[in-house]
């Protein structure tokens, strides 16, 4: 018998479960609040032993800013990728780039890799076993060092501030 130490081991997960439940039901009736609330408490308690320790969000405001920045970059990414695809002369300048990671936690590295895939011209292709190098494939890149600096300034440093600092 697993004895939960706390009623709400992962408050963020509980909130997320409740929101997802209400969205799935597409209703805010009292019954759905109750059922969703029960699920939001029971599921984290049962699954707690399986979870790795999650990094804490230290600066929620920066996370919100990061979210909107990525959203904007996704739109730009789409326009740029469309341009490369539709270019009749097919003048892409693809490259493999080895990106040196500063982040250490698995979760933050995952977030960075996903962000890189969703933003202009880059897909994260491979994470080396040592967890220190991320291999990125870029669709159309001029200066490789410039790109690395750009990713570092725009995405990695905010993530580091939000989760790890």
């Amino acid at each position, binding site marked *: 018998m697993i004895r939960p130490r706390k009623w709400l081991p992962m408050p963020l997960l509980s909130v997320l479960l409740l929101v997802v439940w209400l969205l799935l039901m*597409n209703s805010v009736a009292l019954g759905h609040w109750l059922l969703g609330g029960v699920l939001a408490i029971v599921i984290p308690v049962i699954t707690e032993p399986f979870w790795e320790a999650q990094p804490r969000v230290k600066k929620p405001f920066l996370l919100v800013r990061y979210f909107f920045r990525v959203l904007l970059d996704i739109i730009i990414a789409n326009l740029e990728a469309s341009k490369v695809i539709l270019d009749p002369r097919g003048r*892409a300048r693809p490259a493999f780039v080895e990106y040196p990671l500063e982040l250490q936690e698995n979760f933050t590295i995952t977030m960075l*890799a996903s962000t890189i*895939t969703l933003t202009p011209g880059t*897909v994260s*292709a491979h994470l080396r076993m040592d967890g220190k190098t991320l291999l990125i494939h870029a*669709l159309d890149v001029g200066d490789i060092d410039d790109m690395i600096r750009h990713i570092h300034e725009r995405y990695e440093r905010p993530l580091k501030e939000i989760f790890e600092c």
Partner: protein
Amino acid sequence: MIALYTVMEGVIAFFLIAGSIFALIGSLGLTRMKDFYMRLHGPSKISTLGVGCILLASIAYFSLLDAGPSLQELLITIFLFITAPVSAHMLSKSALHQKLARDPRTRGNPQELQEDEEHSIEEAPQGDSKLP
């Protein structure tokens, strides 16, 4: 009231068309790009926004029709934004593992794609591994 419906109709139509165009371009990318790694860019990015636009239109349409916010589509969007990068990552990982050929213009020579001398010697006794 009529003006609101007309405006919303325009907005919905705009999102539908924009989404379709993005989805079309993403699919075009599959045929026009030269190697596997470049083809990966189309579906992982552009179709995400394409589907996102269509879902926005769907949210607007059903919110208007049912006279109440209909936010279920947000869930699809969130799941899509979480899963698209992961699947793209796994695809390119397996492509690297199989050392798929890349476009000759590609710069950078990652160790994953280099022909590993020691490795091939180790594998040689196990059979004819010289695939065309």
